[in-house]
């Protein structure tokens, strides 16, 4: 059986990340190596933030992106991604989704959240940056798959941030998930 991981855009292209948010020049190798080393083929989801707010966007939280216009933008993306997932499933492939926890849009289990963030891009001193729950695009994608009667693939979010240059803990988490 072919195994296909639908990965967040920035895992293969850190150029899509917000200024100051990239961990390397291009491909974030640890996660790509882990997937390919275990025989997973890669499919890449579009970056909802890049397409909507561009390369010079500020760092943002889920609440800032949670507008009708951004939801429409995400639904346009997930319509295509869900079509691709459906095509793989019809072929008998195994599919997983790899998001980026902490992202306001691509988080799977954690998303950047702060209701009062706005104006100048500074975090309130006491604010928790992360909250339980998905980012907006992942949420829309799972809803789109449900609406098509497609059982949601297993999904995991890795965090780019880690102690040291290679996020070993997150890579181990991904390996455990893939073995799952």
């Amino acid at each position: 059986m072919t195994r296909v991981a639908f990965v967040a855009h920035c895992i293969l292209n850190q150029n899509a990340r917000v200024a100051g948010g990239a961990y390397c020049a291009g491909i974030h190798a640890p996660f790509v190596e882990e997937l390919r080393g275990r025989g997973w083929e890669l499919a890449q989801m579009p970056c909802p933030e890049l397409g909507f707010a561009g390369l010079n966007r500020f760092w943002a939280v889920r609440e800032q992106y949670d507008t009708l216009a951004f939801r429409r933008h995400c639904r346009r993306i997930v319509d295509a991604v869900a079509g691709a997932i459906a095509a793989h499933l019809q072929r008998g492939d195994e599919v997983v989704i790899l998001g980026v926890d902490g992202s306001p849009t691509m988080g799977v289990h954690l998303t950047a959240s702060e209701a009062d963030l706005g104006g100048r891009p500074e975090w309130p001193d006491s604010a928790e940056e992360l909250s339980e729950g998905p980012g907006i695009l992942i949420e829309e994608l799972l809803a789109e798959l449900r609406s098509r009667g497609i059982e949601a693939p297993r999904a995991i979010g890795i965090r780019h941030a880690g102690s040291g240059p290679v996020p070993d803990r997150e890579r181990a988490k991904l390996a455990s998930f893939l073995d799952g």
Partner: protein
Amino acid sequence: MDPDARGRAVALVAAEARESESLDVLAVLERCGWGAMLLPPSWYPAETARALLDQAAEHVHEFARHGYRLALIGARLGLREALERVGLELPPAIDPVSEAELSAYLTML
């Protein structure tokens, strides 16, 4: 973390060009500091492929607008039209046969 580690170089990679016995495209891109945009494989349903190519073209438009280096590795039917819909032409393209050839090409751009 570097204040801005982005390499400002992105390669569009046709699915059929990603791997062969003599060439691992993603490994070369990683070594050269290029990001990758994976294009949909040719067997995808036409409507799905067109939508994904349109979204890839919009990303390319944003990278081009900011002066990023761009390249196409392999070929993908429909990409030219998707780029034309956002006012762009195909980026410089290569269909490499070896990692050395691809590496040299990316370095030259």
